[in-house]
């Protein structure tokens, strides 16, 4: 479904992605983790061309997405993307947020778009907030709307870029719940996240990155029980007991 071959990216002299080769199968859920600055967000942003790459090749459904003739808008409409900062459109209601793209891009009728959107909002538990504006929602609710908005385009792939990192702790659960539901329904997902519980429960594979390189790929059980790479070991012990290093 998604295939990266020797992908390289530089910001000036800084080697942000170093020779990344990965593949994600249909229906697979892959969790990407690693310390900040490791390139995991950059990597996931290259998958829908939010970031250009300098060399290598990324294919989605067998199509080279950086090829010149690719219609980038059409490509992106088939990839759901959920941002750390939600990025809902504050001037539109929750419902309008979810119907804008289907009506304009998929040429759905207002009624049809509305029905789909309400069903998706119901799925993330927010149908009753359809007429609210984003600013009236909590962070967790906004992120669930963002998931519904992405799903409204009915994409075969969903990408999540640290979807719970900007949330208050008590709101993380509701967002993960929505993501778990998706994963169990067979959605192909790539998630940049540090939520180990989520990774353990639904991920098929964990990828650990640091300094633009993939250092380890493993099944979640083995990765969290005993990671092989020393950097991964240090990372896991740091996020499990953040005070240990300071003592």
């Amino acid at each position, binding site marked *: 479904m998604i295939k990266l071959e020797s992908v390289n990216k530089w910001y000036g002299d800084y080697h942000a992605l170093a020779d990344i080769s990965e593949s994600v199968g249909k229906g697979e859920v892959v969790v990407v983790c690693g310390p900040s600055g490791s390139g995991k967000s950059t990597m996931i942003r290259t998958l829908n061309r939010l970031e250009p790459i300098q060399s290598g090749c990324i294919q989605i459904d067998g199509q080279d997405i950086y090829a010149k003739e690719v219609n980038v808008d059409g490509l992106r409409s088939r990839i759901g*993307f959920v941002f750390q*900062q939600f990025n809902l459109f*504050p*001037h539109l209601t929750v419902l309008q947020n979810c119907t804008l793209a289907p009506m304009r891009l998929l040429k759905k009728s207002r009624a049809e778009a509305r029905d789909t959107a309400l069903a998706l909002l119901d799925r993330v538990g927010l149908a009753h907030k359809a007429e609210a504006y984003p600013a*009236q929602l909590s962070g967790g609710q906004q992120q669930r709307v963002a998931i519904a908005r992405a799903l409204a385009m009915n994409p075969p792939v969903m990408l999540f870029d640290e979807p719970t990192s900007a949330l208050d702790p008590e709101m993380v659960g509701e967002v993960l719940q929505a993501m778990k539901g998706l994963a169990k329904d067979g959605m192909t997902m790539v998630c940049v996240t540090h939520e180990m519980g989520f990774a353990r429960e639904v991920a098929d594979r964990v990828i650990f990155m640091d300094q633009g390189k993939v250092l380890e790929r493993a099944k979640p059980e083995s990765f969290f029980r005993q990671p092989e790479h020393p950097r991964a070991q240090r990372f896991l012990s740091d996020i499990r007991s953040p005070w240990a290093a300071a003592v």
Partner: protein
Amino acid sequence: MFDILKNFGVFYLIGQYPHGPLGGLALTLILAALALLFALPVGLLLAMCRISPFPMLRLPVTGLIYVIRGTPLLMVIFWAYFLLPTLTGHKTDQFSTMLAALVIFDGAYLSEIIRAGIEGLPRGQMESARSLGFSYLQSMVLVVLPQALRNMLPSLVNQFISSVKETSLGYIISLSEVSFVAGQISTQLMTKPAEIYLLLGLTYFVMCFGLSRFAFWLERQLAVRSVKV
């Protein structure tokens, strides 16, 4: 004061109309309204060019904006006055000359306000619109501009108020707008400049104050609907 209004009130309001060209306050209002109407889309277009990734669009427009911002409006009016007839091949009337000068001048200023409004929005807005599959232009029109225009309303109104007052510079090319007419009345009466120019000042104040209040009302209407995140 009442004598002046009685004798010259109609002249003040509509100039020599219907026995001659329309002038006075009516002409000022029409000029200001048309200037605002045309300057906004011009400003929008210039702003789009100014933030465009294509140097072909960006560089000439950036240059133009710097030139206009570095020149007094009076100069722009003179340029328009002497240049437009040469360019178009036939004599342009004072009204079109003044309108052209105002639209170019205010368009340049508005474009910088609009550019700041667009660049002041979080980058994520454009990114999330693009990631849904909208083109650059669609994202601008559907997502970025509605928010940006709302945020920059106070600055826009500021500029609009300036435009209203700038119409008085039509005086210099003998456009019979309200300041020019006031000057004529003053010359005829000889002894009442204070009263006449007080009336003129009040006239501008009422127009600008009205515009400010309207903007204030509009801002509140918009604020009711959504709160900034």
